[in-house]
C-alpha cells in the first residue's frame, strides 16, 4: 500500500533519515520503534509530505507521492494523528471533528460522524466541551477521531501513548486494534512504548539514528534479544 524506497530526509543541512526502506501492506498494523531522536516522527511525517523526502521515493497505492503537497496527500487517503495530539484547545470537540473532515466531501460527514461516535462514545458525550478541557486520554481519542474524519485508508499514529497512564494506554491500543480489525484500516504506528506496540502490530521496524536496523513480525521482534536489551528491559 505504502512503500518507502531509499528515503532520505533533511532538516536544512541536518540529515534525519538515511536511506529508509519500509513497506506497509493493506490491512496491517505496522509499527516503528526506536529511541528518542532516531527519526521515527520524521519517517511518519515524510509519509504525508511534512517535510518532503530529499531523495528516494514514497509511493502510495502505486502512485508516487514524494513531491505531493500535504493537502493532496491527505485528501488522497492518508491521515495523521500527530505527535503530542495537537487538537485545537479552544474549539469544541465537535468543531475539532469538523476540522478533520475539512478535505472530504460534506455528504460523508454524518456517516463518518456516526462511525467515530461508535468507536469513541466518550467523545459523543463531550461534543460541546472545549478540546483543551479534555483529559489526556480523551484528547488522544479526539486526535485519532479527527484523523478518521478525513476518511483515510492509511492511518498514521504518532506516539498515541505519550504521557498517558498505563490503563489509558491499554484502552487506546484496544481502540487501535478495533479500528484495524472492524474497519479494515491500515495503521502505521510510531511508538516509544515498544512492548505494547510490538504486541499489537503485525510487523515492526526498529529505527536507530535514521536507519532501519531490524524488521520482522511483532512476535519476532519481541523475542529478539537485541530489541529486548535496547527497548524492553525493565520496561512495561
Amino acid at each position, binding site marked *: 500500500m505504502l512503500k518507502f524506497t531509499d528515503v532520505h530526509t533533511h532538516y536544512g543541512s541536518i540529515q534525519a533519515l538515511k536511506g529508509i526502506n519500509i513497506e506497509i501492506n493493506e490491512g496491517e498494523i505496522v509499527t516503528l520503534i526506536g529511541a528518542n531522536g532516531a527519526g521515527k516522527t520524521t519517517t511518519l*511525517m515524510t509519509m504525508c509530505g511534512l517535510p518532503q523526502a530529499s531523495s528516494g521515493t514514497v509511493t502510495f497505492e502505486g502512485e508516487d507521492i514524494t513531491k505531493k503537497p500535504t493537502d493532496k496527500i*491527505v*485528501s488522497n487517503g492518508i491521515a495523521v494523528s500527530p505527535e503530542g495530539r*495537537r487538537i*485545537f484547545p479552544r*474549539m469544541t470537540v465537535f*468543531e475539532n471533528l469538523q476540522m478533520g473532515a475539512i478535505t472530504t466531501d460534506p455528504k460523508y460527514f454524518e456517516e463518518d460522524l456516526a462511525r467515530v461516535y461508535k468507536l469513541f462514545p466518550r467523545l459523543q458525550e463531550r461534543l*460541546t466541551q472545549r478540546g483543551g478541557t479534555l483529559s489526556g486520554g480523551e484528547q488522544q481519542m479526539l486526535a485519532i477521531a479527527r484523523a478518521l474524519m478525513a476518511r483515510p485508508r492509511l492511518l498514521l499514529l504518532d506516539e498515541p501513548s505519550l504521557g498517558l497512564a498505563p490503563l489509558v494506554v491499554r484502552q487506546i491500543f484496544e481502540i487501535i486494534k478495533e479500528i484495524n480489525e472492524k474497519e479494515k484500516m491500515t495503521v502505521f504506528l510510531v511508538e516509544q512504548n515498544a512492548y505494547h506496540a510490538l504486541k499489537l502490530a503485525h510487523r515492526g521496524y526498529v529505527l536507530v539514528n535514521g536507519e532501519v536496523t531490524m524488521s520482522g513480525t511483532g512476535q519476532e521482534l519481541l523475542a529478539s534479544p537485541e530489541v529486548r536489551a535496547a527497548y524492553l528491559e525493565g520496561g512495561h
Partner: protein
Amino acid sequence: MSVQNQKLDMLSLLKESGLAALIAAALALPLAGFKTFDVNGTLTAETRFNWVLVAAVVVFFGRMAISIGQKTFFPSMGQAAGGAAGSIGDVINQNRTLLLCLLLAAVIIFPFTPMANRHSLDLAVYVLIYVMLGWGLNIVVGLAGLLDLGYVAFYAVGAYSYALLATTYDLSFWICLPLAGIFAASFGIILGFPVLRLRGDYLAIVTLGFGEIIRVVLLNWYEFTGGPDGISSIPKPTFFGLAEFSRSGSDGLPPFHELFGIEYSSLHKFMFFYFLILALALVTNLFTLRIRKLPVGRAWEALREDETACRSLGINPTNTKLSAFAIGAMFAGFAGSFFATRQGFISPESFTFIESAIILAIVVLGGMGSQVGVVLASIVLVLGPEIFRELAEYRMLAFGGLMVLVMVWKPKGLMSKRNPTVLMHNDTNAKQGAAK
C-alpha cells in the same frame, strides 16, 4: 500578635503607596512639570513642580485607599473581580439575541430621536467607521491570528481608489465601492504572497513596513495622488442614483426631500451617511458570522490555534492566510471609500501608523475574535478621547490610563469568551441520546 500584624500591614501599605507616589512623580515630572510657551517665536518653558507634588500626593493617598478598600471589602480581590465580571458576561451571553436586537433597534432609531444633531451623528459615524475597521481587522488578527500592523494601508487604498476614480472618471460611489474593495483585496494578496510564510513578530514588522510604504508612495507620487496636498472636492454619494442631498439638486437629479415629498433638512445628508456606514459595518459583521461557520472560516480559527496541526489535516496554510488577508483588506477598502466620500478631502495624513495602532487596539481590547467586543472597544477608544476633550492637554493621559485600566481589569479583552460556531441545543443532545 495581631497588633504586630497590623503594624506590618501598615508598613507594607506605606511602602506600597510610597512606591506608587514615586512612580507618579517620575511620570508627572515630564508630563506636567513643565509647560512650554511661545514667546515671540521662541520656545520657553515654565516649571510647575507644585503640580508634580499634587500628583504624587493624590496617588499616594489614592493607592492607600485602594489597598485598604481591597483588604476590607474584598479579602480575595482577584477572585471577587473575576467572579463579578464573569457573571456579567454570563448574563450577556444568556440574553445575547435579545440584547443585540435591542441594541440594533436603538442604533436604527437613534437618528430620528431629538438626540440626533450634526455633532452627534458625526460622532456616531466616526465610531461606526472604526467598528467596521475593527470587524475587518478582526478577520485577520482575531480569527486567523495574523498580526497585521499595517491595516491602514488597505484603508488608504480604498479611500484613494474612490477619490481618484470619482474625481478623474466621474464614476458614482455605488460603482466605486465594490471597485475599492477589489483594489484593496488585490493589494492584500500582493502583500500576502511574499510575507505569509512569516509568523508572529516577523509578519507584524513586514506589515508595518508595508503600511508605511503605501503612505510614503501616496505622499511622494505627486502627479498621481496630489502628494501632501491630498485630493479635495471628492463627490458625495447620491441616494442610490435617485436623488441628491442638497437643497436644489444637481446633475439632473432631484433633491432628496422632493423625491420623498418631505421638508428639507440639512440633517438628511448626515443621516444618510450614518445609515450607509451602519449598513456597511453590518454587512462586515454578518459576513464574518457566516464565514466562521464555513470550512474556510473554521480553517482560519484552526490556523490561529495550531498551524502545524492544520498542515497535518491537509489545510493549505498559505491559501488560507491569503484569503483572510484579502477579505480583511477588502472591508478596509470599503471603509476607506466611505471615509473619502464623507470627508470630501483625503491626504496621506489620515493614514498614519497611529490609525493602524488604534484599529489593532480595538481588536485586542475587545478580546481577539469577539464581534461584540469590537463594538465596545470602538466606543471606548473613539468616544473616549472625545469625552476627555475637556481635559485639553491631559486628554491622551486619561486615554492611556483608560486603556491600562481595561487591560488590568480584563487582560484578555472586554469579551474574551470564544463562542463555538456550532451550538448544540439540548433537544439535539436528547435526540442523539435517544438514537444511542
